[in-house]
């Protein structure tokens, strides 16, 4: 059945809560309201107030209490109402959750999922637009995922809930209602840590994830149609751990790699990808690895400013042509 990205997440929550009574949902406005974006709609009616819990606006506590509950065998799904607010919980995620197992020598596990609606292009301004994934992708002990399609959104959330490690799950707000796809009704999961080739091509590879996947696919079609450039598109899906083999395979296949992400350029995952390719596939390259990302500024509010700083289809097409011409 064709469902939206938002509905896919909602279905995953329903199904996992039905499957495992230890799964519960906690966050700001998640119960009575069904979430600011309606992602948790219907859960309160289905599972009751002990498993679908409205919290105070206290992100550090939401995550910290989630870790405490996880130590006792629960599997909390914790919502940051906007991914931008995750910085309030930063210590709880990178110090408390990510290190829990390690610092106690393997005695404990921390099966929490932190859902973070992220992403710009909705005129949300500085604190309702960010893509903060790179703050977390250098923290071992965490898994960081950013699904781009309804199928992945559902399958990866189910996998994240079943995973015994803390998972930060970035869901791109712009995709909630704009992306639809046929998603099977039966139970399925999508493994974490595995990238997927979304479009096969021979001349140039785009490596991307999350919101910019759809722009990259559009750009690839335009480049093929108008310039005859055959573009491969690799969807990373998981940012920690990175699927290094898939990245290297894409580089070896075409010799020209463009990394695209909506997170900022400096310190974004694109730098790590370029380094991996440089270290392990240098001899296959026909051009330097290029990056197209949000400019190194803040998420400005005014639409022309926001448009200017973000990647989009036209900018990706231009970057593809430029790299192809190298």
């Amino acid at each position: 059945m064709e469902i939206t990205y938002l509905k896919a997440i909602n279905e995953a929550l329903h199904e996992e809560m039905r499957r495992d009574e230890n799964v519960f949902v906690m966050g700001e406005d998640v119960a009575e309201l069904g979430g600011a974006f309606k992602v948790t709609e219907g859960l309160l009616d289905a599972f009751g107030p002990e498993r679908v819990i409205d919290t105070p606006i206290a992100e550090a506590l939401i995550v910290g209490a989630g870790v405490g509950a996880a130590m006792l065998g629960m599997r909390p799904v914790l919502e940051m109402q906007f991914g931008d607010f995750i910085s309030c919980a930063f210590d709880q995620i990178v110090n408390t959750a990510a290190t829990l197992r390690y610092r106690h020598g393997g005695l404990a596990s921390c099966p929490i999922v932190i859902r973070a609606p992220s992403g710009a292009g909705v005129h949300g301004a500085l604190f309702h637009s960010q893509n903060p994934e790179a703050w977390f992708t250098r923290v071992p002990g965490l898994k960081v995922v950013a699904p781009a399609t309804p199928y992945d959104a559902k399958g990866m959330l189910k996998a994240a809930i079943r995973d015994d490690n803390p998972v930060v799950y970035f869901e791109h707000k712009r995709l909630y209602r704009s992306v639809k796809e046929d998603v099977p009704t039966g139970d399925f999961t999508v493994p974490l840590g595995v990238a997927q080739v979304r479009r096969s091509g021979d001349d140039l590879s785009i490596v991307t994830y999350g919101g910019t996947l759809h722009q990259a696919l559009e750009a690839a079609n335009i480049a093929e149609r108008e310039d005859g450039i055959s573009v491969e598109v690799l969807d990373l899906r998981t940012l920690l751990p990175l699927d290094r083999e898939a990245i290297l395979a894409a580089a070896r296949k075409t010799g020209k790699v463009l990394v695209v992400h909506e997170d900022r350029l400096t310190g974004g995952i694109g730098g790590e990808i370029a380094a991996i390719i440089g270290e392990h596939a240098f001899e296959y390259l026909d051009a330097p690895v290029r990056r197209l990302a949000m400019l190194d500024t803040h998420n400005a509010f005014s639409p022309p400013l926001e448009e200017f700083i973000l990647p989009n289809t036209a900018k990706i097409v231009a970057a593809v042509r430029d790299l192809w011409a190298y």
Partner: protein
Amino acid sequence: MEIERDKLLAMYRTMRRIRCFEERVRDLSIANEIPGFVHVSIGEEASATGVGAALRLTDRITSTHRGHGHLIAKGGRLDRMMAEIFGRRGGYCKGKGGSMHIADFALGILGANGIVGAGLPIATGSALAAVIQGRDDVTVSFFGDGAANEGAFHESLNLAAIWKLPVVFACENNGFGEFTPAQTVTSVADIAVRAQAYGIPGQIVDGNDVVAVHQAAAEAVARARRGEGPTLIECKTYRWEGHVVGEHAMIGTGQYRERAEIEQWRARCPIARMEKWLTERGLATADVFEAVAGEVRAEVEAAVEFARASESPDPKEVAEDLFV
């Protein structure tokens, strides 16, 4: 509330064990046999002991960077604790965590923690889990006067209050947040009054009186177990030693407190005080105290030998336990 003699003597022994263990840790740290930073709670044994004695096995605690006493009071093994403090494979965390991160989940010890205030949300979540799971286990969060100025303290008290969670917030006010006198950085003289802001009971207790601490803790734990919600207990005590063992080498002496103040508090030693209390009531005599002290010394020495005999971890193990 009358406390049975066996329990009183058990509390006496616990305080002795904590004191002896930490004096040994301090000395081994100064002698450079223990690496890194250790924080001891010498002089503060009554708060850990009195609270710990109010808990059963399935109750839980979160602890702090100054947590040896809490862990011992909840049943932590001295040998595996000491091995961890030595950084050895036989330690609770296989040498990965050290003094500030010892945990024993089977004993309900959800971990010491090197981040000030980090235990409060964890304890709150543990109490939430108890409610969801339909268990009447209580969680105690030990923390210091410093943590009472962290946002995590306020977020946790608020949540525990609105949901009436079975958690007891046990503040050990030892007078100093690291090297800063608490009264210079805290808006109120008594942290316990902050309970009023959250509509929960707040109680000040003489933190060097193990009997008083125990009575307050037992009431708070019983209240939490009945589903009536959290309590904030402030144990007024004093840190005899520095923030970190060996600090004089780093910052010099007499930087932030007077010698006379330390001596005043040494005169209020919780162990000597309990000895007097037990003696006055005819519950124990000096030979009992001596026997306990001797047994505890032997136990701590055995723990040191266990730690010394334990291997150091192999560097090949460094990436183990990052993920499940």
